[in-house]
């Protein structure tokens, strides 16, 4: 029953002890991340304009090329990390990719020269930092209880059942890294100009959250 959650793996790439597997579910998420990374790669960023309400005055925000280049680099790194998190078949590898998504999300917004945005990014960075504790603790409990880190083995049911607390830690860690339910805080960061890059923060956190739902239902 459990192996039907993400669908039956269509293709398993043998990569040492860390299998990479593609189910219909993970393929969908992977393609979404891939498409958006390509969009970030080729698209030109927006130019944000502030319009004074009730008048004709407006001013365009100055954005340097260096800043945009750095943010594009971070967005692409975030996309690659998200793709990795989508297809990996290893718990510890997933947590590593999730941690990388968290830090690149901070990078995307931290480059913006606005005090308000940077304050929000700092707080977000603290949460991402703290979230590594439950994230990696969850993976450690997975390893200790089941004696394995492979999702394929969890799927087969050949290892002992995973305790609820390990799943809770993993989910809380992913919530912290991706800030999935805390979009109120992310809205502050979205005041940062540069449309395709800030959306990458949202998309990556959504995708890693969808993926962790599959993972906790495996074991």
């Amino acid at each position, binding site marked *: 029953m459990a192996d039907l959650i993400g669908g039956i793996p269509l293709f398993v790439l043998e990569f040492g002890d860390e299998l990479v597997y593609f189910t219909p579910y993970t393929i969908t998420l992977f393609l979404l991340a891939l498409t958006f990374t390509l969009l970030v790669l080729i698209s030109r960023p927006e130019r944000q304009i502030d319009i004074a309400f009730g008048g004709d005055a407006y001013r365009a925000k100055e954005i340097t090329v260096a800043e945009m280049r750095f943010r594009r680099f971070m967005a692409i790194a975030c996309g690659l990390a998200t793709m990795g998190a989508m297809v990996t078949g290893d718990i510890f590898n997933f947590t590593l990719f999730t941690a990388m998504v968290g830090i690149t999300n901070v*990078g995307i917004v931290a480059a913006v020269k606005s005090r308000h945005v940077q304050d929000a990014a700092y707080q977000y960075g603290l949460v991402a930092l703290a979230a590594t504790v439950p994230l990696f603790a969850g993976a450690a409990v997975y390893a200790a209880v089941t004696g*394995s880190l492979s999702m394929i083995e969890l799927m087969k049911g050949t290892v002992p059942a995973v305790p609820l607390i390990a799943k809770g830690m993993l989910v809380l860690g992913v919530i912290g890294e991706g800030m999935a339910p805390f979009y109120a805080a992310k809205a502050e960061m979205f005041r940062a100009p540069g449309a395709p890059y800030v959306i990458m923060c949202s998309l990556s956190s959504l995708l890693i959250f969808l993926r962790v739902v599959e993972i906790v239902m495996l074991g």
Partner: protein
Amino acid sequence: MIIRKISHVLSNYENITRLFAGACLLLFIAGILLLPLPYSEKQLYPKTFDRNSSLDPYDRGGPPFEQVGIVSQYPENSPTAGFVTSYLTPLSLFLSEQTLHLGTTIVAHPGGIIDEILYNTRGLDTVVEATILFIAFAIASYIYRRV
């Protein structure tokens, strides 16, 4: 009405950190209450500690550039698993012969860090770990140089 109040609290991003810390605290208290957790004796990559080794706790056995027997999940996928790729530089080797405490400084001097990439089993993990570190460096250097 209650949703509006919650949104209002959450809209202050300084509260997010506190909320997350509280959630972590509750979960860890629950984790402590749920102890003991079962421990599977059949672990991957078992290692033994040699307390008398000067590289303790990093000494995981095996001579450099030799293969040692380890338990991996899919041994058929990586025939070179257990190949010890670590080595010490002459300086580290000299230090390890002089003192019993090199293990505590193993990552703090050249030649010691190589020891971390020990068995050729979980290669991608090592790559991603280093990538996270370099991404962090990139962000820090960008912000530092701009200000």
